[in-house]
């Protein structure tokens, strides 16, 4: 009992961590591109990124399942390349989560990049910093808070995801059975005690982790900042 939930917890953390890393790797350049692109056609890309949000997860899962099955191109290609079936694999739930959580990572980053403006980047360029250097030495530190937001939203949303993972993952213990499914199973199986324990554990654990993240992200010298409105209220 505790063993199987622990396994689900581990799978969940692995999946959410991997998904978040991939999301940041894909989402950062995408957000940058969208923030700095001036062509009007970017609205199409923006809309496509936001699209997975509108389809209910189960339905999105339904279509992903079709796409991932060996009958269709994406699934076929995967099978040819890796020798493994995509549907019902750990990779499948990671890919599904990445698609589903992409807007939660891209959009906050894009807005942060847009609000940043060009003036400090220009200053950096004239101190010999190339684009990559500028990104890591100026953009990243100045938008750190938004990166943390993006990663938190992406991670948390992936942990809570259920419909897609269930459909394309198939609830295989140790591989695709994640905590959200385990919890649902407990509820459905009238195992309320276990569901409550798991839920409360999840809540308290998350609360601690989230608080820790936000705490690390507090401005170091919050005290010296003028807070015109904060105090004037």
């Amino acid at each position, binding site marked *: 009992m505790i063993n199987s939930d622990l396994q689900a917890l581990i799978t969940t953390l692995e999946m959410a961590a991997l998904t978040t890393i991939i999301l940041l790797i894909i989402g950062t350049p995408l957000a940058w591109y969208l923030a700095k692109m001036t062509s009007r056609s970017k609205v199409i890309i923006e809309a496509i990124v936001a699209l997975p949000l509108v389809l209910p997860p189960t339905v999105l899962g339904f279509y992903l399942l079709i796409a991932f099955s060996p009958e269709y191109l994406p699934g076929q290609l995967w099978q040819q390349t890796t020798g493994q079936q995509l549907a019902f694999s750990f990779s499948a739930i990671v890919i599904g989560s990445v698609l589903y959580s992409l807007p939660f990572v891209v959009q906050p980053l894009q807005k942060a990049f847009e609000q940043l403006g060009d003036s400090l980047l220009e200053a950096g*360029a004239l*101190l*010999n910093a190339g684009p990559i*250097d500028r990104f890591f030495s100026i953009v990243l530190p100045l938008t750190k808070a938004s990166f943390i937001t993006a990663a938190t939203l992406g991670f948390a949303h992936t942990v809570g995801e259920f419909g897609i993972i269930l459909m394309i993952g198939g609830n295989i213990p140790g591989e695709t059975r994640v905590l959200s499914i385990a919890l649902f199973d407990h509820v459905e199986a009238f195992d309320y005690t276990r569901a409550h324990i798991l839920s409360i554990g999840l809540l308290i654990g998350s609360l601690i982790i989230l608080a820790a993240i936000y705490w690390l992200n507090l401005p170091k010298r919050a005290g010296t900042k003028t807070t015109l409105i904060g105090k004037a209220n």
Partner: protein
Amino acid sequence: MNNNPPQLNIDISLSYSQFNLVINQAIPLTGITGIFGHSASGKSTLLRAISGLEKSVFGNISLGKIKLVCTEQKVYLKPEARHVGLVFQNSRLFDHLTVLGNLEYAVKRCKNNQLFIDDIIELTKLKTLLNNHINELSGGQQQRVALARAILAEPNLLLLDEPLSALDQQSKTQLLTMMLAIQKQLNLPILYVSHSLDELQQVCDNLLVMAQGKVKEFGNIHQVIHNLNHQLGDDLIAQQTSLSLPITKLCDGYGLTTLTLQDKQKIYLEYDASFKDKINNGELRCFILASDVSVTLTEPTNSSIVNHLCGTINAIKQNNNKVLLTVNCGEQNFYVAISAFSQQKLALIVQQQIYLQFKASAVRTFIH
């Protein structure tokens, strides 16, 4: 052709909705070139074009042998590949870093490392501020950090956009002295935008005057200033004589420094300890406001005025009630502004021999 001194060649045009910049000018890459002009004459835009921040520029820019921009050949060097430094009009410091962090940012990305960060910190008086955050600095402190940061990057060309506008005279003098020293040490060409002719006089070898997006004058600083003396309609500068003269005696018993004109006539000015730093090839740069010089027909006596030069009137130019005399003393033109009343009273005419008189303190090396 290889023997030509390296130049910054600019031949560009650039259009905004209400403003056109059209510049065709070669600027020698030696010493400091001042850029002077009214507000909105296009000074900042020119610097942005040279540094690569104006994408929409059309034409050619080359820095020595390196093509920075050539629209015909579709050459457009990225800003970070140009090795051109720029101190912005608003300092643009990185507020996620401390003062030291900002300076180190430049040092880390500098190829040559001929300068020591500690020296620059010392010269810009930033020692006590190193761990301060940028938003804890006063306006003048921010400008000092921005200047130090740009210098520490050791660019091949340094562009300064009013880098001292928020500083008091004393800090200005110190920093200008520092810039001169560093310019020489690194042999670093500098373009220096300023509204203050005083600042430019102090440090520039050449002067470029801009008006409405175009070059109005360019050349040796003394020459350009003298040309501007005659443009009376436009109150761009105070009329003045601008000089670089050899020092014959640094300090006599009375605290005066002696300069010598080509015909051996002497000019005395008040000695200042800082002259040692200001001497350039044995010459001292100074200027004398046309309004500080007066004219007598006979050699004056019994006066506290120490400078008396004998010369010939070259030109007389009247503008309303004011008259500008050009007086030649030993190959050097001097400019004298007097009232029409005085001119009439003394009945001055061209080719007449007269005496110029001005106080030692009228010979200025830097305005106060």
